[in-house]
């Protein structure tokens, strides 16, 4: 079994809603140092696409984002405690996920910089592939963390 699971501490998480063509979206991109991704289900360690006008932003605070949003209608919500983050990494990581995730994770369909809100086993997750190791980040509600880590460890024992 060549796969590793660990919990990681990510900087602040904020849920952002804004019209991507509004100037505020550009201001926020400047704040983050990277434009808000507009291709569905893509992102980076700074920000993930969650919907056509919704992103999960890492690092910036609710206040900073609210300032960047200015008078533009939108929504900024600190959700730092709303999800815990795991990293699943190693050659067998994909095989672990394929035991409980129905979306296609083959490199032709999913790869570094891709993310998805989907189900892993019976838990809702945000899945984000960070690199080609492959390393995946799994963001999950803390109340599901016990279930999900038990499931992952069980799946890891059968991977490869």
């Amino acid at each position, binding site marked *: 079994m060549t796969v590793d699971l660990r919990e990681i501490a990510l900087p602040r998480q904020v849920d952002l809603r804004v019209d991507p063509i509004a100037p505020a979206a550009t201001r926020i991109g400047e704040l983050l140092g990277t434009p808000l991704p507009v291709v569905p289900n893509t992102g980076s360690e700074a920000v993930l696409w969650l919907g056509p006008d919704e992103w999960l932003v890492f690092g910036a605070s609710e206040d900073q984002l609210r300032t960047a949003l200015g008078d533009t209608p939108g929504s900024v919500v600190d959700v730092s*405690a709303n999800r815990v983050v795991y990293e699943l990494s190693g050659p067998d990581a994909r095989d672990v996920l394929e035991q409980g995730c129905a979306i296609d994770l083959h490199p032709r369909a999913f790869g570094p910089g891709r993310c998805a809100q989907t189900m892993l086993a*019976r838990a809702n997750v945000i899945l984000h592939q960070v690199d080609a190791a492959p390393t995946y980040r799994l963001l999950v509600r803390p109340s599901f963390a016990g279930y999900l880590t038990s499931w992952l460890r069980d799946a890891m024992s059968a991977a490869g």
Partner: protein
Amino acid sequence: MRLPEGGRIDRTKPLRFTVDGIEHTGCAGDTLASAMIANGLLTVAPSTYLGRPRGIFAAGVDEPNALVQLDDPMQLATTVELVDGLAATTLRGKGRLTDEPDAARYDKRNAHCDVLVVGGGPAGVAAALAAGRTGARTILADEQRELGGSLLTENRLLDWLADAVEELDALPETRVLTGTTAFGYYDQNFVACASKTRLWHVRAKHVVLATGAHERPLVFVDNDLPGIMLASAVRQYVNRYAALPGENIVVATTNDGAYGTAFDLAGRVSTIVDSRSEPPAELVNRARELGIEVLAGSTVRQALGTQRIGGVRVGDREIACDVLAVSGGWNPAVHLFSQSQGKTRYDERKAAFVPDKSVQAQHIVGAANAVYDLTGCLDEGFSAGIEAAKMTGFDGEKPAAPYTAREVITDPHPVWFVDGPEGRQFVDLQRDVTVADVRRATGAGMRSVEHVKRYTTIGTAHDQGKTSGFAAIGVIAQLLGAESPQGTTTYRPPYTPVSFALLAGRDRGELHDPVRKTPMHDWHVRNGAVFENVGQWKRPWYYPQPGEDMKAAVLRECRAARTDVAVMDASTLGKIDIQGPDAGEFLNRVYTNAFAKLKVGHCRYGLLCKADGMVFDDGVVMRVAEDRFLATTTTGNAAAVLDWFEEWAQTEWPDLEVWFTSVTEQWATIAVVGPQARVVLAIVAPDVDCSQDAFDFMTFKDAFLADGTPARIARVSFSGELAFEINVDGRAGARVWDAVMATGLPTPYGTETMHVLRAEKGYVIVGQDTDGTVTPQDLGMEWIVSPRKDFVGKRSYQRPDATRPDRKQLVGLLPTDPDELLPEGAQLIAPDTPLTPPVPMLGHVTSSYHSAALERTFALALVKGGRQLIGRTVLAPLRDRTIAATITEPIFYDPEGARRDG
């Protein structure tokens, strides 16, 4: 008997096994059935209903007779791979489940591919090669341990096959799943496959079905005797397993296919009985060269013998034999094709139901498409593989086919049954159903095979009609004088039986369903909480102290909340952040009461109804800013309420600028309840002035706790007592809970006490006191239904149904005997109602508890026209006694609301 050479078994690896306790030896590569035949064991357990002797009939999943009990019940000897130490018991029809849990590890894989090929015979291997070489992601699934299908039976192209297998294994994007049966074909090319311990969910862009064909039996008198076998099965046992079922063989056929069996067993075959008056001259000549007599235009009328076949009657002749190899023609295995909604049609010339029209992105090739010559199968396979790859965006050359001699397949001449005693002509060997039974069904007026199936049970045993289904269709057609068979039964998954353990996979034990835990869960465990499941959440139900039962614990917890101070973990409540300039307007439209004018810093209890006016959810909403609210929902409805908000905002009012974010787990919530709540708050949050003048009911303050933790403290109450809810970042939840408990003052309480306290006040719990048929008015909550603004559901309150006087209304119940506890769900009737069904019901108990404050039991109930009945008596007739109770107002404690200020 084991032949001295040939076959694909490994004679250097003997395997010992037992059948019914007697030890035998087989070889690696055997199935249990081939090893039995090699050991002279052809006869298996007698038939289920009639007790007639039966033998191994087929060589694969179509076997009707050779059921065995292993650790797993009801396995087919023909599909069980022989392993050393295997202990089989032959089964008469029914197996038994073991009491022991299945210790094997079953799991699941999700797989995606461009091309899924089902079936590893020549057509399937050709398709997989063609598709795989283009670079398309290809999966080839075959139920057998070894690829090759009919090639292994017929000993043909084995070198080509070996090369193909090697190449498929080497193709980087091609995966070969042997020992894996595609058993269910669902929408959008979702195909479920099962290996022994793994369930595959395959989603394919294109599917090539190369599922082969099943040989049909022949129906004649005593056609169930041991020694009567499918011709292709005899050939497979001999060629693939070097297992010879008999020495003196007669072949009875309606088609060309069985000639190969006769030729491969030349020297042991005396006669071919062919129903066709002019079989192909080429085949007849070849038979004669091999010393085999061909009886054209003839059929076997009867098998002779009692325990095993000893001969056959053909016309006036009796021909001795110890095996009769039969072929009643071929049925394309259209099971998966039909499951995928493909349509079949009856092909007169081929005398079979053949694929007509695909519905999904799919090809069906080879014998499954009624193509029976090897050249044709390979050609169709290669073509389909290339076409499938092209359809999914890949390109390549159609591979060159290996050399195969050209075969001309001559049309069959089907025989459905013969003259003779119909009660001894078996249509379904597993169910012991005969032509006589089918005649009874058609005599009773049944025409459709679906009806005959249900009347006779044909095709309802473990093989689901693989051998019997078409036999029945033919018999019905002949009995009804129809020109040709009229339709099949419906093919449903699974194609072959699948164990529940496999379907369950890892979703068992602690992984069966997520158990959701709050940040304070460990404290609850350490402090002896008994938990209750609320949806997927584990919530503390009550905290028994040593020697306490549930009743005592709950009474103590209630007393603490009413007379002192108690705390509850309320973190599971759903929470939704609502932002945008139109947030207030949105809430106005979905809640029954008004929110647009709620002041910042204030809270309001709100009720949500569906468009039909029925109560859907409730909770407290806080106004955090002009354009920002935080709504709470019931624990079980958090996701449903968010969905509800999104639905209205996106689909009905897209012009409203409002956004929703689930923050259920962003916040941990601690309810501090009771007259001494301020004392606790003063310690935990010393900077907050929580005096009556400084902290109004239904307001909240953002503040820092003693240890600096930011908190949002709300003065809300679900118990009627003075109460505060401390909301903190979820990650601080456990720490703040510890700080609250460290004051040494509060008693922890669970959901049961919470339920009792709110019921004493007549506060409903959505989903317990309501069931989707209850309006706010039914609950006596007219006060929360705004007369001034419109909201979702409002129009429904003018419907005649909503204003009926006999609607069920929420009332209180006080049992006449103050120690009697009404069971929740108990039906209520008027006194003097006769208990002869149908008994007119007045309503039912929705909540029922012992009350510490009232020092008696009480209940809430929904009763027809209940508010007009206050003061009257109702009865709850139970199994062993009847409980009388008085109907009351649904509020039992502090009706003036004096306690909420402490």
